[in-house]
C-alpha cells in the first residue's frame, strides 16, 4: 500500500470512529443508550439495517463467490423483500406497542419468563460466538495478504468498535453505520468501474457479459428443484424468506437497529428500503466478481489464490509436483484466453458457427482448468497438511492489490474495515443490551437504579467485546469450531422464529406448550443436520414449522392452567 492508500484508510476510518465517540457520547438514560432516544429517521435505519447484515466477509467473499460459482448466490436473498414486508407489517408495530428494549422481552409478556430466557439464551450463544468470527474473518485476510499482524488487527478492530459503541450507545452505532455504508457503496462502485476498465481494449462490457454467460457465470436464477441444492429459486424464495424473517424479526442485532426510530413509519420505511435494494446490491457485488473472472481470462490467474500457502507448497518437498501442475495450468489458461478472443471476434463479425465453436472450445478449456485446480488443491494439502483449500475469499483482495490505483486500494481496505466494524457494533450493542435487559435487570438485579443499569450495560458491552476479540485471537487454533459456529447460527433461527410466530398468530397457545415445542423443534433441526443432506436454508422452514405444529398439539394436550392458554398475559404487562 502506498502513502496515499494509508492516508485514505486512516482518514476514513479514524473520522468515523472519532465522530462516533464524540458526537454521540454521554447518553444518561437506558432509553437514550439502548434506543437512542427514538430519534432516528428512515434513511439512517435503512442503511444501519443493511450495514449490520453486510459484514466484511460479504465484501471479501461474495465477489470471490461470483468469480468461482457465478451469480447463483443472489437467490439466497429472493425471500428477503417479502420478509421485510412481514416484519414491517407485524413485528414492528408489536415491538413499538410493547416499548421493548429487546425482542425477547416480548416473549415474557406473551408467554412466560422461561420462554423469554430461552430466546435470549439462543441469541447470546449463537451471536456471542459469531461476533468473534466477524472480527477474525477480515483480520485473517488482511494479515495474510497485507502482512498486518493478526493479533493487533483483531484488537484494533475490536477496540475501535467498543469505544464508540460504549460511548454513544445505539445512536452512535446507527449513525456510524450510515457513514460506513456510504463508504462501502462508494468503494464498491469505484472498484466496479476499475474492474470493467481493466478489460482489454477490444473486449467491451457486452462481450464480457457474453463470455461470462458462455462460462456459466451468469446463472442468477436456477428454477430446477433439489432439496440438497443450497441455492436455487425455490430454496431462496422459501428458505430465504424464513431465514430473513427470523433474522430481521427476532435477532436483537437487527431488532435493535429499527426499534430506535422516531415512529413506526420511520422503522417501516427503513426496513422497506433494505427490502428494495438488497437484491440489486448483492447482484452488483456478485457481478463485480464475475467481471474480475472475465478480467482473469485475459490476465493469467494463479492456480491457487492464497499466495502464502502456495509459496509454502512450492518450497516444500512436493515443489516439483506443484511446478508441473502449474505448467499445465498455464497451458490451459492460454488456451482459454485464445478461445475467448475467438469468441469475441466471432460475435463482432456475427458468425454464428464460429461463435458456437468458440463457445465449445471455451467450455472445454474451462473444464481442464477446473480439473487442474482441483489437482493443485490436493497437491497443496499433501504438501502443507494444515492448508485450507477454500481460497475464494482471497480472490477479490488479490485483484485489488494488483490492479487498483493508489488511493483506491486504501479506500477498499477502509470499506472492509467499515463493513467489519458496522456488523460488530450491532452485535456487541445487541449482546450488551440483551444481557442487561433480559438477565441483569430482569433476573439478577431487578431493583437496580437507572444509573447502575446503564453502567452495567456498558460493562456488558465491553465484556462481550473482550470475549469477541479473545475468540478471534484464538480462532486460528479452532478451525473446526469456526465452521461449527457458522452452522450453529443457521440451526437456531427457525426455532426462534417459530416461537415468535406462535406468539403473534396463535393466541390460544401458552408458554409451557411453546417452550417444549421449541425444544422439540430444535432437536428435529439438529437431527436433520446430523442425519440428512438437506440444504441449510430449509432448516429455517423445518424448525419454524415444527415449533408451530408441536406447540398447537401440546396446547391441546396440556391441561389449562399456569403456562397454558388461560395464562396468556395481556400485551401491556411487559417487564
Amino acid at each position, binding site marked *: 500500500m502506498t502513502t496515499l492508500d494509508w492516508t485514505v484508510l486512516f482518514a476514513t476510518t479514524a473520522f468515523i470512529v472519532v465522530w462516533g465517540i464524540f458526537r454521540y457520547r454521554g447518553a444518561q438514560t437506558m432509553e437514550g443508550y439502548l434506543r437512542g432516544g*427514538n430519534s432516528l429517521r428512515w434513511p439512517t435505519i435503512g442503511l444501519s439495517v443493511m450495514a449490520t447484515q453486510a459484514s466484511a466477509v460479504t465484501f471479501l467473499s461474495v465477489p470471490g463467490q461470483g468469480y468461482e460459482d457465478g*451469480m447463483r448466490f*443472489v437467490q439466497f436473498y*429472493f425471500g428477503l*423483500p*417479502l420478509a*421485510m*414486508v412481514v416484519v*414491517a*407489517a*407485524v413485528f414492528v*408495530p*408489536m415491538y*413499538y*406497542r410493547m*416499548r421493548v428494549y429487546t425482542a425477547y422481552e416480548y416473549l415474557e409478556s406473551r408467554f412466560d419468563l422461561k420462554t423469554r430466557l430461552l430466546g435470549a439464551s439462543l441469541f447470546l450463544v449463537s451471536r456471542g460466538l459469531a461476533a468473534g468470527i466477524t472480527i477474525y474473518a477480515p483480520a485473517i485476510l488482511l494479515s495474510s495478504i497485507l502482512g498486518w499482524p493478526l493479533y493487533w488487527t483483531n484488537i484494533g478492530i475490536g477496540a475501535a468498535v467498543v469505544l464508540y459503541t460504549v460511548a454513544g450507545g445505539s445512536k452512535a452505532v446507527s449513525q456510524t453505520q450510515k457513514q460506513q455504508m456510504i463508504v462501502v457503496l462508494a468503494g464498491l462502485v469505484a472498484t466496479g468501474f476499475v474492474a470493467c476498465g481493466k478489460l482489454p481494449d477490444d473486449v467491451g462490457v457486452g462481450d464480457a*457479459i*457474453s463470455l*461470462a*454467460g*458462455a*462460462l*456459466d457465470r*451468469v*446463472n*442468477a*436464477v*436456477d*428454477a430446477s428443484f433439489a432439496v440438497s441444492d443450497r441455492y436455487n429459486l425455490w430454496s431462496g424464495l422459501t428458505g430465504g424468506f424464513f431465514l430473513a424473517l427470523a433474522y430481521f424479526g427476532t435477532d436483537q442485532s437487527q431488532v435493535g437497529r429499527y426499534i430506535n426510530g422516531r*415512529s*413506526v*413509519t420511520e422503522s*417501516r420505511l427503513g426496513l*422497506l428500503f433494505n*427490502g*428494495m435494494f438488497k*437484491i*440489486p446490491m448483492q*447482484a452488483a457485488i456478485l457481478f463485480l466478481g464475475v467481471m474480475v473472472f472475465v478480467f482473469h481470462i485475459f490476465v493469467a490467474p494463479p492456480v491457487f489464490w492464497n499466495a502464502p500457502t502456495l509459496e509454502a507448497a512450492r518450497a516444500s518437498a512436493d515443489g516439483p509436483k506443484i511446478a508441473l501442475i502449474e505448467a499445465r495450468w498455464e497451458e490451459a489458461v492460454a488456451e482459454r484466453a485464445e478461445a475467448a478472443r475467438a469468441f469475441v471476434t466471432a460475435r463482432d463479425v456475427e458468425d454464428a458457427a464460429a461463435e458456437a465453436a468458440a*463457445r465449445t472450445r471455451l*467450455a472445454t478449456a474451462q473444464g481442464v482448468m477446473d480439473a487442474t485446480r482441483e489437482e493443485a488443491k490436493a497437491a497443496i494439502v499433501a504438501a502443507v497438511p494444515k492448508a485450507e483449500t477454500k481460497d475464494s475469499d482471497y480472490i477479490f483482495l488479490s485483484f485489488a492489490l494488483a490492479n487498483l490505483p493508489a488511493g483506491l486500494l486504501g479506500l477498499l481496505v477502509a470499506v472492509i474495515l467499515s463493513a467489519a466494524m458496522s456488523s460488530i457494533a450491532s452485535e456487541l450493542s445487541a449482546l450488551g443490551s440483551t444481557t442487561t435487559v433480559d438477565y441483569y435487570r430482569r433476573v439478577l438485579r431487578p431493583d437496580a437504579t437507572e444509573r447502575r443499569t446503564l453502567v452495567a450495560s456498558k460493562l456488558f458491552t465491553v465484556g462481550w467485546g473482550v470475549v469477541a476479540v479473545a475468540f478471534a485471537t484464538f480462532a486460528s487454533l479452532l478451525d473446526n469450531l469456526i465452521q461449527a459456529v457458522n452452522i450453529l447460527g443457521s440451526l437456531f433461527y427457525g426455532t426462534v422464529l417459530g416461537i415468535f410466530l406462535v406468539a*403473534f398468530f396463535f393466541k390460544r397457545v401458552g408458554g409451557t406448550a411453546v417452550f417444549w415445542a421449541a425444544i422439540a423443534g430444535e432437536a428435529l433441526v439438529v437431527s436433520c443436520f446430523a442425519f440428512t443432506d438437506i440444504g441449510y436454508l430449509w432448516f429455517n422452514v423445518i424448525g419454524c414449522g415444527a415449533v408451530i405444529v408441536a406447540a398447537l398439539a401440546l396446547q391441546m394436550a396440556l391441561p389449562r392452567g399456569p403456562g397454558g392458554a388461560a395464562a396468556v398475559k*395481556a*400485551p*401491556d404487562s411487559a417487564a
Partner: protein
Amino acid sequence: MSTSDAPAAPEDRSPPDDGPPPFLGRWRNVYLALVLAQAVIIGLLALLTAALAP
C-alpha cells in the same frame, strides 16, 4: 377528549392495545409495490440467465 381535531395516525407510538394491528392497513399499496418491483428484478435476472446460458 382529544386536544386536537386531527385524527391520530395509526403508526403513532401509542396505538390502542386492543387486538393485533391490521396486517396491511393503509400500507398495502407500498408493500405491494415493493413485492412487484422485486418480482420484476427477479424476472429480469431470469431472462438474463436464460439469454446467456451456455
